[in-house]
């Protein structure tokens, strides 16, 4: 077994954006059940060291594939594309305008403690994030258009950050 095999192979999945989350969880648990350092606490030093390395490797693979963002980014890396590279910053103007509007709306809902406004914003942002995930699946799995996927991924990154900030805004309003 090759320590350097890709995350999909390690977890016994076909390399694709659309994955069976249940199977991913099961494969992860099955592997950790074998390799977690707790299984080797009474073993020799060499096995303890390997167990930590393997368990670390399994955690890395699982965390990468679990999140849609990192899974897509990783699939592009397997194609030799660094989607989030600092040089890849070009974004369509209308997308950026929309982002700015949402950002402004977020600031004003927080400033005025506008709870329903925040919920409406969250709903809109979630819908857009979901739409982008659908687009990513089509770009990556069907059209295999990796350049388009890179741009979709960068858009999705904006939405993820916005949703995280909306989450923080809820905490502030509490």
């Amino acid at each position: 077994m090759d320590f350097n095999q890709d995350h999909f192979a390690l977890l016994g999945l076909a390399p694709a954006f659309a994955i069976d989350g249940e199977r991913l969880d099961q494969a992860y648990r099955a592997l950790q059940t074998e390799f977690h350092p707790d299984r080797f606490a009474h073993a020799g030093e060499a096995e303890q060291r390997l167990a930590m390395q393997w368990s670390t490797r399994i955690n890395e693979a699982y965390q990468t594939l679990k999140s849609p963002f990192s899974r897509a980014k990783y699939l592009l890396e397997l194609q030799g594309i660094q989607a989030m590279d600092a040089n890849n910053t070009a974004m369509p103007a209308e997308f950026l305008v929309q982002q700015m509007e949402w950002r402004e709306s977020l600031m004003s809902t927080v400033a005025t403690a506008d709870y329903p406004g925040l919920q409406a914003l969250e709903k809109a942002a979630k819908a857009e994030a979901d739409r982008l995930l659908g687009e990513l699946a089509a770009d990556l799995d069907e059209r295999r258009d990796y350049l388009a996927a890179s741009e979709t991924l960068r858009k999705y990154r904006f939405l993820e950050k916005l949703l995280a900030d909306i989450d923080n805004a809820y905490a502030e309003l509490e």
Partner: protein
Amino acid sequence: MALLQISEPGLSTAPHEHRLAAGIDLGTTNSLVATVRNGISVVLNDERGRPLLPSVVRYLNDGVTVVGYDAQARQSDDPHNTIVSVKRFMGRGLKDLVDLSTLPYHFVDAPGMVQLKTVVGAKTPVEVSAEILKALKMRAETALGGELTGAVITVPAYFDDAQRQATKDAARLAGLNVLRLLNEPTAAAIAYGLDNSSEGIYAVYDLGGGTFDISVLKLTKGVFEVLATNGDSALGGDDFDRRVYCWMLEQSGLSVLSDHDKSLLMAKAREAKEALTEHAEARITAVLTTGELIDLTLTEGQFNELTASLVGKTLTPTRKALRDAGLSAADVKGVVMVGGSTRIPRIQAAVGEFFGQTPLTNLDPDKVVALGAAIQANVLAGNKREDDWLLLDVAPLSLGLETMGGLVEKIIPRNSTIPIARAQDFTTYKDGQTAMSIHVLQGERERVSDCRSLARFELRGIPPMVAGAARIRVTFQVDADGLLSVSARETATGVEAHIEVKPSYGLTDDEIARMLRESIDHAMDDVDARQLAELRVDAQRLVDATQSALAENGAALLSQSERTAIDALLGQMNAALTTSDPSAIKRATEALNQGTTEFAARRMDVGIKRALAGHKIEDIGI
């Protein structure tokens, strides 16, 4: 009469003897030790039938050290030499400590960790904790009739690296083989989860004497997965006592007290708090050394008012943990209460209100952590074919590096499942720069000054290049104990400058050896004999592990010549073990470790195939 030991059917595959293992809850106020006997986790009582060991250590000027109830009883008479709640000082510098005015100790500021001046000299919190652990070790070994193979020691989930390292050092100093540092709420979840065979999302609310943890776990068939943890490693029952103590001073118009009276009134405050868990009011009476009489009555209502902000301080981390787990209070199926302070009625009410359900209190909140730790220790010691459950825990706090402008670049985010490793590349900012200073930090804030500094080290020997050309890869590894190690190397030129750091407060092996030598208890011991004994234990453990690995799949995975080579190493080891030559045993141990690395790797591969195929080993013909 000695009872016959009967092992549980089907638990042990190899016909080896039952290894003695214990779970230790090293608490702020009280400590406990538990073990699994005949498949059931039980707390081990002292010779007078008491389960708790007060975490109190008293140093006498004749070199005798007293631990537990006897030390606690003399707390007010000898406040400077009677150390209580030492856990609060673990891995802490003087500047980290608050409420110094209510503490009767003479602190000595020392690099890394504060020390306490006693009649037998300055003691580090690590040494004081080691005394508590030694007492528990002795209790366990007396009860079990043999030397412990190893122990699981619990720590608050929100303990940072300094506090964890200090705990591990204390265990080493006490002569314990630490199988794992286990987070307290996770230990409680094991005790509860295995008892009730529950499934779903559980929250563990753990308010101890000096620390608060909240953990959110997902329980699915045999897997305990910690989703998020949060807390406050300086908030606990002690703070409730202190509020009552301050109220007493205010009511009596007192300000300056002798250390004896401080200890006395703190003890009275604690008694009042405990009385209020069952009564609507508590009467507090005391005679001070000045002859002054204190006679007060504290009602439950007054107590709740005094401590309302403390209760509130536990709910903020609770909210954060739920948010980090991506859940709301309504998703939580059960709330487990842990720690003596959860007996306070107002706390039970507040937690019940927050989660919209009555918290679970069916296991003794003082014992549940030790019981869970013992179950884990039993598995880790190898007494159980452990394919029935698995524990996946997280790192509680983010880890990062200092970058330009005094900011922290996070490398490992909080709530990452451990073990975990992350690497980050950095570069030089000056032409010809040949060294780089690396500052490791832990915490959630953005500024260096707001985070805990874990270690600083310098990477030297970078080949001179133009600014920005060097690639320094810094790797953080957090192991299953939640402990960090950092390494760095320059990758652009292939010139390696590799360094392993242990955070600065971590004790080196030499320091541990020195402390052992200095320790009064070991003055009679021959340090060399002790070292030899430890080497033998390690060597024997390796021989046992190798032999059981060979029995399991040596035939399938090794060629005849490879098998012969390992057998030869085993033979050398056995020969070394018949001597009393520490360096021969050490050499043989290293050789056997080295010689079985490839075999270990192949055993791992078999495991991978087996795990992915979802079959047992016999199904794939090994």
